[in-house]
């Protein structure tokens, strides 16, 4: 037999017919007598009937198996449509109307049949043969005693069709309308409640006439009086219609269609209220399910664990395999537990199965758990809820978690959190240029009084060292500039302590990445802080390594840290003599600043340097440099061991840079060597933390710085406020910057030399060591 493809309507219809013919409830074979009756009702000539029988193989087999029966039905339809009877025509003829079996009474039936077939939607096409579908009224869910599973199910669909067919019909009256509607002579449905499967044919004929009677019957049955057959999971009989099979227009016709021809048609009791969708859950059903859910799990928003559900559903006496399948279908999120929605879906499927509906391969849309569980549980009224069901699958599909709502809710949270995470990383904003730096420097300078000298100096060095990048501001043409910048910066910070304030400013700017988003208010501030920040960071990173761990600090320009070192290294030697003056004072301070944290050390030196080389207004944020320079300076002076010398060299280089930069800046200044120092000092300033502790030292050096500053052309304090002045200072800084850059390269060279020396010394030390240990 060729594969027979049936449309949904056909499928249902044929199933119904088969059930009808299957008087003996064999589910496999229909009685020939019945079949022949059927065929006769088809109003086909006898020879055609014979041909059909031959074609479908019944003649060969001697009986009508289901497949034969179906093929025969299809052939009847073919014949009735006027197509030649061929085996191939079974599948080739498209849109074949349903076979019409006309009983005595009505032509309308044939018309109905015709319309029926056209309404494939209305699954009602269950030709009423079968007893009212389970949904009707009482679905018997649990009681096995109810045998009329299938008929019921089949009947149900028909009713639902009515609403579809005749929209004006309200569900309860569906049977009525159904009757009118060309529901195919499923008149049997109406009868069914009364008569049972018996005279199926009569229903056909009486489709029309029966309608009224049926209606009465239906109406009688429609309101689902809780019937005995309602789910009896050993439970109170629930509401009436378990399954309101609504021959759904849209959905799952396919699923339900395969109604097993469980003909034990007696489920007349079933009354389905409205059939929009065979899988839709009516209000009563849903309420029942919810109640059942509560008995297991009082919290409607909670879950029923798998084991409890297993016990519960096992009571329904369905085979484990089917229960397993139902579980697979209904546990949407595959978590081994059932939410209210899932539970209702499972329950519904169990009811359907008990009523003879075959289980669908995939979950019908109307049963899919809604995304928002909360809404669901609240939504007892089904119809809207069910509609929502269909809508929900779309939503539900994407995510299986029962906590969809929570998912939805988390989304905004995520956004927020993401915003939080959008913390700015310390943007090493290389500050632009000099202008900003300059301004900052000036501001800083102007800001502090006593610390002025120091601050700018501090700033400078730091800038110097850090920034090669920061060309502009570095150019402290004069100590004034530096001072100004410094003070101005201080003014920004409005801290009593310039340095501290500067430092803080920079620190806040650079170090705290989160704070980066809000750099200190005054425009120049951020800038300088940027530059500074880079230097700050360097310092900070070093500081951090030592002990301070500040977020983002390390992240901050990593490049910066190294700078001071190299810059410093080359610095020392040449500038040493120059720096000696200032250095001496510095050296007094801790020359051995931690190499890694020249910052600390540098501060003191910076101050010294700053004092000595205040002029330099290095926009350079390389605090490190600044710090290193002073350190290097000191160390250089000390001419201590290579390690320290390195550092010293660095500081020296810084200082040199500063001096170099300051030199051009301060032409007048003879203290060329001092120029670099101010820069490192300035840079130093950036490292707020260090600045703070170093404040004292700075103050000490203030004198030196002051001297340096004095030597430098005074930078108008108002620069910070005065654009022109700022620009001028910026220019100066730029010049200084270039000079410093040159100096830097030289210092780098020196650094290399010193490093080589160091290496050699270390080797020697190593050689000596073994002896010492011996």
């Amino acid at each position, binding site marked *: 037999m060729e594969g027979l493809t049936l449309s949904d309507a056909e499928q249902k219809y044929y199933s119904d017919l088969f059930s009808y013919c299957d008087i003996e409830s064999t589910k496999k074979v229909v009685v020939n007598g019945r079949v022949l009756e059927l065929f006769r009702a088809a109003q086909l000539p006898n020879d055609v009937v014979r041909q059909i029988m031959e074609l479908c193989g019944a003649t060969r087999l001697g009986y009508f198996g289901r497949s034969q029966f179906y093929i025969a039905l299809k052939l009847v339809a073919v014949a009735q449509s006027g197509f030649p009877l061929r085996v191939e025509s079974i599948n080739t003829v498209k849109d074949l109307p349903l076979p019409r079996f006309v009983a005595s009474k009505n032509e309308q039936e044939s018309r109905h049949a015709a319309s029926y077939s056209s309404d494939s939607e209305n699954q009602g096409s269950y030709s009423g043969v079968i007893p009212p579908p389970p949904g009707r009224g009482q679905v018997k869910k649990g009681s096995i005693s109810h045998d009329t599973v299938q008929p019921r199910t089949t009947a149900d669909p028909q009713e639902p069709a009515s609403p579809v067919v005749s929209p004006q019909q309200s569900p309860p009256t569906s049977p009525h309308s159904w009757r009118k509607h060309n529901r195919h002579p499923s008149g049997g449905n109406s009868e069914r409640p009364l008569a049972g499967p018996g005279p199926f044919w009569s229903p056909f004929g009486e489709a029309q006439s029966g309608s009224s009677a049926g209606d009465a019957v239906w109406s009688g049955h429609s309101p689902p009086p809780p019937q005995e057959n309602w789910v009896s999971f050993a439970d109170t009989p629930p509401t009436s219609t378990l399954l309101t099979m609504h021959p759904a227009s849209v959905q799952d016709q396919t699923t339900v269609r395969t109604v097993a021809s469980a003909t034990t048609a007696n489920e007349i009791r079933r009354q389905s209220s409205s059939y929009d969708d065979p899988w839709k859950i009516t209000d009563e059903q849903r309420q029942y399910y919810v109640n059942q859910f509560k008995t297991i799990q009082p919290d409607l928003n909670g879950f029923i664990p798998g084991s409890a559900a297993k016990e519960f559903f096992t009571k329904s006496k369905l085979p484990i395999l089917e*229960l397993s399948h139902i579980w*697979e279908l209904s546990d949407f999120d*595959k978590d081994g537990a059932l939410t209210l929605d899932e539970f209702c879906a499972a329950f519904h499927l169990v009811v359907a199965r008990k009523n003879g509906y075959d289980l669908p391969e995939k979950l019908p849309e109307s049963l899919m758990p809604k995304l928002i569980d909360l809404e669901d549980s609240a939504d007892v009224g089904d119809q809207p809820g069910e509609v929502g069901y269909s809508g929900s699958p779309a939503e539900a599909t994407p995510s299986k978690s029962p906590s969809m709502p929570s998912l939805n809710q988390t989304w905004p949270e995520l956004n927020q959190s993401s915003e939080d995470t959008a913390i700015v990383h310390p943007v090493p904003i290389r500050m632009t240029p000099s202008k900003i730096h300059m301004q900052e420097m000036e501001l800083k300078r102007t800001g502090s009084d006593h610390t002025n000298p120091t601050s700018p100096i501090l700033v400078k060095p730091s800038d110097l060292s850090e920034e090669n990048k920061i060309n502009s501001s570095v150019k402290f043409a004069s100590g004034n500039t530096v001072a100004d910048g410094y003070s101005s910066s201080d003014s920004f910070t409005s801290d009593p302590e310039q340095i501290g304030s500067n430092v803080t400013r920079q620190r806040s700017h650079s170090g705290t990445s989160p704070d980066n988003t809000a750099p200190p208010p005054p425009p120049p501030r951020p800038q300088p802080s940027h530059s500074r920040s880079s230097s700050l960071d360097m310092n900070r990173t070093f500081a951090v390594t030592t002990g301070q761990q500040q977020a983002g600090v390390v992240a901050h320009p990593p490049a910066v840290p190294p700078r001071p070192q190299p810059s410093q290294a080359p610095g020392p030697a040449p500038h040493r003599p120059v720096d000696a003056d200032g250095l001496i004072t510095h050296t007094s301070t801790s020359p051995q600043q931690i190499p890694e944290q020249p910052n600390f050390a540098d501060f003191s030196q910076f101050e010294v340097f700053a004092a000595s080389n205040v002029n330099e207004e290095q926009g350079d944020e390389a605090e490190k440099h600044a710090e290193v320079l002073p350190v290097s300076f000191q160390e250089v002076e000390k001419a201590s061991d290579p390690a320290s010398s390195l550092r010293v060299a660095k500081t020296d280089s810084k200082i040199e840079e500063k001096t170099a930069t300051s030199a051009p800046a301060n032409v007048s200044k003879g203290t060329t060597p001092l120029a670099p120092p101010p820069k490192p000092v300035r840079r130093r300033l950036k490292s707020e933390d260090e600045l703070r502790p170093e404040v004292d030292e700075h103050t000490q050096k203030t004198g030196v710085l002051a001297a340096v500053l004095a030597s430098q052309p005074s930078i108008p304090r108002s620069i910070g406020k005065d654009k022109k002045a700022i620009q001028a200072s910026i220019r100066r800084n730029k010049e200084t910057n270039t000079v410093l850059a040159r100096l830097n390269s030289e210092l780098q060279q020196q650094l290399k030399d010193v490093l080589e020396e160091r290496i050699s010394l270390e080797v020697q030390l190593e050689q000596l060591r073994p002896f010492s240990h011996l």
Partner: protein
Amino acid sequence: MAVCIAVIAKENYPLYIRSAPTENELKFHYMVHTSLDVVDEKISAMGKALVDQRELYLGLLYPTEDYKVYGYVTNSKVKFVMVVDSSNTALRDNEIRSMFRKLHNSYTDVMCNPFYNPGDRIQSRAFDNMVMSMMVQVC
């Protein structure tokens, strides 16, 4: 596209075997059975190390002239064996891995079903569908 997929329980009895319909299924059953030895060998070889370190995907167990057999074992010693056609050269290792991953996920879903008793044959339709989708599409 596999020609045969089998799920073997810890005690080495099959929980699920499905072959491409046109092939001689018995042959595949035999191949799966022989591959169990190789699987055990691989497990024990790695067994010295901690179980965690053992990778679930075992890779090619052994090739024959016509077929290649791949293995995968879960932490509960449930084995998945897949026989693929050698002529199917397009199948890369990654694809085999993803197929096993899908298998594993489906198997987990089956396990989650409270109505499924571990040790039973797998009769889940969903699992079946998934396996069929991975099978060679032989008409």
